[in-house]
């Protein structure tokens, strides 16, 4: 039954997720076409004094376009999160929940299917958006700097190695470690974010009225609590390492990676607690209006 739940969940969530990725892809493609067009190249590399106004206008338009593009991607990310939250609430606890909750499946299967599917689509969105931004930024820089993409990639690789070695010598940590932390955060974060979101929405079932609103309030409360716990742990890390930081202020930079790991660990703990709490609510505390 879990496989069937996955099948239907993946297809339903994928309709919106796929559409958002497709829209982002089309906008990125339009951006790429503009960046590689002779018009953009002419504007960027104009040296004629009479073209300074054109250059200024195009620079402003480019800036606005970049802001708009970034805003669109961020908006899509936030919009997708809101869609996932609304869909979870509707399919589990409102009228559509009358079908979901009477399926012959275990409560744990329902929650697993919802969290894993939504987390997977969040991850797919994040990867797609990162690729789109990288493509657009890469082509943009390549045109502005007047170097080929391959030369640019080679330069980035060399710079990365230089910075990595420098940081390793300076503070005893490598950029690679930070990179791994970001990747782990990115992958795990998609699933913990969704588990926390869905868990908080499920907490709304404890209320007799306005269960959706109570779910939103529970989510905000969980986020505040997470920030407090993060703050306490990070303060503890700083206190423990205080003497070393006093001796060598650059050591504080190595704390960033540790703090990121602490933040991730806190979100994992909250996600696990809320995941099992959601199952408990669906199994034992369901309170459909």
């Amino acid at each position, binding site marked *: 039954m879990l496989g069937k739940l996955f099948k239907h969940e993946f297809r339903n969530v994928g309709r919106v997720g796929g559409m958002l990725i497709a829209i982002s892809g089309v906008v990125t493609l339009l951006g790429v076409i503009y960046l590689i067009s002779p018009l953009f190249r002419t504007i960027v590399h104009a040296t004629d004094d009479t073209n300074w106004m054109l250059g200024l206008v195009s620079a402003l338009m480019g800036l606005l376009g970049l802001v708009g593009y970034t805003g669109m991607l961020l908006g899509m990310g936030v919009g997708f999160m809101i869609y996932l939250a609304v869909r979870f609430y509707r399919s589990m606890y409102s009228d559509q929940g009358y079908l979901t909750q009477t399926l012959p499946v275990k409560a744990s299967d329902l929650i697993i299917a919802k969290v894993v599917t939504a987390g997977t689509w969040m991850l797919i969105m994040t990867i797609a958006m990162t690729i789109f931004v990288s493509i657009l930024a890469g082509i943009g820089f390549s045109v502005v700097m007047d170097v080929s993409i391959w030369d640019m990639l080679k330069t980035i690789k060399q710079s990365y190695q230089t910075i990595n070695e420098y940081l390793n010598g300076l503070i005893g940590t490598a950029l690679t470690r930070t990179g791994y932390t970001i990747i782990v955060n990115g992958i795990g974060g998609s699933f913990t974010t969704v588990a926390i979101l869905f868990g908080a929405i499920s907490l709304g079932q404890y209320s*007799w009225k306005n269960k959706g609103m109570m779910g939103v309030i529970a989510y905000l409360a969980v986020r505040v609590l997470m920030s407090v716990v993060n703050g306490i742990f990070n303060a503890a890390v700083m206190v423990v390492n205080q003497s070393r930081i006093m001796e060598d202020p650059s050591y504080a930079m190595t704390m960033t990676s540790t703090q990121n790991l602490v933040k991730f660990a806190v979100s994992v703990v909250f996600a696990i607690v809320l995941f099992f709490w959601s199952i408990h609510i669906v199994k034992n505390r369901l309170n459909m209006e």
Partner: protein
Amino acid sequence: MSDLLDLTNVSKTYGYNQYAVDGVTISLPKGRIIGLLGPNGSGKTTLIKMINGLLRPSSGEIKFLGEPIGPQSKAHISYLPDRTYLAPGDTITTVLDYFEDFYEDFSRERAISMLSDLRIDPSAKFKTLSKGTKEKVQLILVMSRQADLYVLDEPIAGVDPAARDYILRTILNNYSHNASILISTHLIGDIEQILDEVIFMRQGKMVLYSTAAAIREQQGKSVDAYFREVFAC
């Protein structure tokens, strides 16, 4: 005849000591059509939700074929709620796929045949259908299962009299005679002819459980007339 569903001292409270259902004890047998009758707010829907696992009883116990309510019971109970549970963007075909995947006792052929009888296009999206048509589709989905117990909450409340006849025919023609139907309504006159037994509920309490024939014989009047007498304002 062995019992399908056993409720033992089942209560549901809301807030402080407000009883929606109050100490209901009843055993429903196989092979019966049972009317769950009562005025608005008498606890019919709350009781039905508890039978389907959508609400947990505050106290008491509900067992279906000797087992607590859970995935096993849900595989054998076909439930029609008093509201539309279909996603507006879905097509009827999508929901047929859904039922076929999750309910082993679902007959797609039967559902398509009934949709065809009512000239409903399976490729239609729910947002394009009228309220009455959505209710008919839900009833078709529910009655296309070979369940042991059908729980129908107000199946004829929102449809016109002609559609009511079709719905009652659908119910009668499609349930297995080893199965039972628990049907909740306050439109008793329309369904009286199909009822074997009736349960009267008032303010969360079960005030009567009897056969329809016994009411007619002992009271000398129809179930509808007796209901009006018992629940007269």
